[in-house]
């Protein structure tokens, strides 16, 4: 099985202390202790550049987009469409017609499920996903299955948390109409072999949607090189605002799909008898969009590219390696998800201490980790556990914080005697 590793560049010259100064929230304390924020896989923090870009837009330029001839509407439209072009360059899409703004990854996947899925699926057709998916890449497809009578097929994972590629290839058949998989697992950090998945699917003319919510913050994504038909991600996991996300779709795919929501902005002409839909990408953007969110997302992309995606990935990789070693050194601790290629996410359980208790004890030390099922209950079921604790590392985390996590975990063991 081949997997696409994160491109790792040497971490020399990466000044994490300088990066930390860009994030005002990191200087606060929690319960009297310095904040150690290890929950960026749920939502990352915002650099000042993003906060200021949103503030500038709200303070100077806000009006509705694509509407008026007045100055503010034109400024707002320029900012919004400028953000779309920024996203296009970030993903290396061919055209801004392929960049649709959504509320987030979840809405992007729902868009494809409803527009692509509902229109053309029926009994006998199959949707192929994996056992690693976030609920956002399960439930929209179940809704399409229930509405159309098609089947939802799930490719299994192994005990390391890797997709079993032999099974994936076996389940990918002439009945498969779409493949929808995570690029990176949010619960375990597994990086999926998406190049192999896309090649196999395209050999059968099956389109592929990648849930990139956890991949985009950690790796360079070139949608043309990948060949993905659809790619979804969220702004708020990429140091941008909440409530903004992106669906990339290959133009010929999007052109053949019906709108999924109706309203203003997505039309060219409306009478009570007939409506002519707008062209791409507006056909899929009904109603006034999240303009300031798009502006913030563009600023976040600028920020990430200034630091360098490869440099961030290399830094995070060194944190992941250190954390894996430090946690493996703690008796009774088991890391859940030991794939060969992982993003900077570590899920774990500790003998005799429920993840929920761990979360509370760590919080009292100022260490923020996620505890629970991570919106991936089937993954928890597979490992026979109700929940895990999950630490995730971002561009602003440090090796010292890895050691603070380990110390807090040892403290939890003391509390529980």
């Amino acid at each position, binding site marked *: 099985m081949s997997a696409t590793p994160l491109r790792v560049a040497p971490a020399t010259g990466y000044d994490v202390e300088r990066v930390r100064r860009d994030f005002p929230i990191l200087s606060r304390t929690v*319960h009297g202790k310095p904040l150690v924020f290890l929950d960026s896989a749920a939502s990352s923090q915002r650099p000042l550049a993003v906060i200021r870009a949103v503030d500038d837009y709200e303070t100077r330029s806000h009006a509705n987009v694509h509407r008026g001839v007045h100055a503010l509407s034109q400024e707002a439209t320029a900012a919004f469409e400028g953000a779309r072009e920024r996203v296009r360059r970030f993903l290396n899409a061919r055209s801004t017609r392929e960049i649709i703004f959504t509320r987030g990854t979840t809405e992007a996947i729902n868009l494809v499920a409803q527009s692509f899925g509902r229109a053309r699926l029926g009994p006998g057709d199959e949707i192929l996903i994996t056992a690693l998916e976030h609920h956002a890449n399960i439930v929209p497809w179940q809704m399409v299955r229930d509405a159309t009578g098609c089947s939802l097929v799930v490719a299994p994972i192994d005990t390391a948390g890797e997709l079993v590629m032999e099974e994936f290839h076996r389940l990918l058949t002439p009945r498969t109409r779409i493949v929808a998989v995570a690029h990176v697992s949010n619960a375990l950090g597994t990086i999926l072999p998406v190049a192999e998945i896309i090649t196999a699917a395209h050999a059968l003319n099956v389109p592929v949607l990648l849930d990139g919510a956890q991949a985009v913050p950690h790796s360079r994504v070139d949608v043309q090189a990948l060949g993905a038909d659809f790619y979804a991600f969220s702004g708020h996991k990429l140091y941008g605002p909440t409530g903004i996300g992106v669906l990339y779709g290959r133009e010929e795919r999007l052109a053949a799909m019906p709108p999924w929501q109706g309203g203003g902005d997505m039309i060219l002409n409306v009478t009570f008898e007939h409506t002519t839909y707008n062209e791409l990408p507006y056909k899929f953007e009904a109603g006034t969009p999240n303009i300031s969110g798009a502006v913030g997302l563009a600023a976040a992309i600028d920020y990430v590219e200034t630091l360098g995606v490869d440099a961030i990935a290399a830094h995070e990789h060194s944190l992941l390696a250190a954390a894996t070693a430090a946690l493996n050194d703690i008796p009774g601790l088991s890391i859940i998800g030991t794939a060969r290629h992982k993003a900077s996410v570590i899920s774990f359980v500790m003998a*005799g*201490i*429920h*993840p*929920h*208790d761990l979360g*509370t*004890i760590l919080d*009292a030390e100022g260490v923020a980790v996620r*505890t*629970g*099922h991570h919106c991936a*209950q089937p993954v*928890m079921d597979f490992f026979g556990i*109700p*929940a895990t604790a999950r630490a995730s590392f971002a561009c602003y985390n440090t090796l010292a914080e890895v050691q603070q996590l380990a110390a807090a975990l040892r403290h939890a063991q003391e*509390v*529980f*005697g």
Partner: protein
Amino acid sequence: MELKDLYRDVILDHNRQPRNFGRLDPADATADGHNPLCGDRLTVSLRLAGDKITDIRFEGKGCAISTASASLMSEAVKGHDRAEVRELFGHIHAMLTQTHAPVDESLGKLAALSGVREFPSRVKCASLCWHTLNAALEQGGTVSTEAGNEASAQGVK
């Protein structure tokens, strides 16, 4: 917010060695409780003589707060009737949610749970077993800390 107030020795002891752990078979009443936010699940089974709880067992997987709360509850309610259990639940609920009210010392060992109120995200852990016991006494079935996520299955035993 003091961690020591949450994880008192009584709590840690009942977490390590839960009392009345298991399932009564046959039982006169059972109910399942579920906290979908953290995955905690527990089953409460009862033997009843008229209105009185003569025996109680609980089993399930949960955090220290939920396990200790269920264990302490099982000790506290044995031998009591529905009205007394309802009244006790009222006191417990007040203790867990009313941050500034003095702790009712008549609750005995159950007062060890009072630290939970300083940790709002953990109140449901401590109250799940009580809601489940309530369901067993009322009609059986399933209760969830998140209404709507898992509709209560009325009348299912």
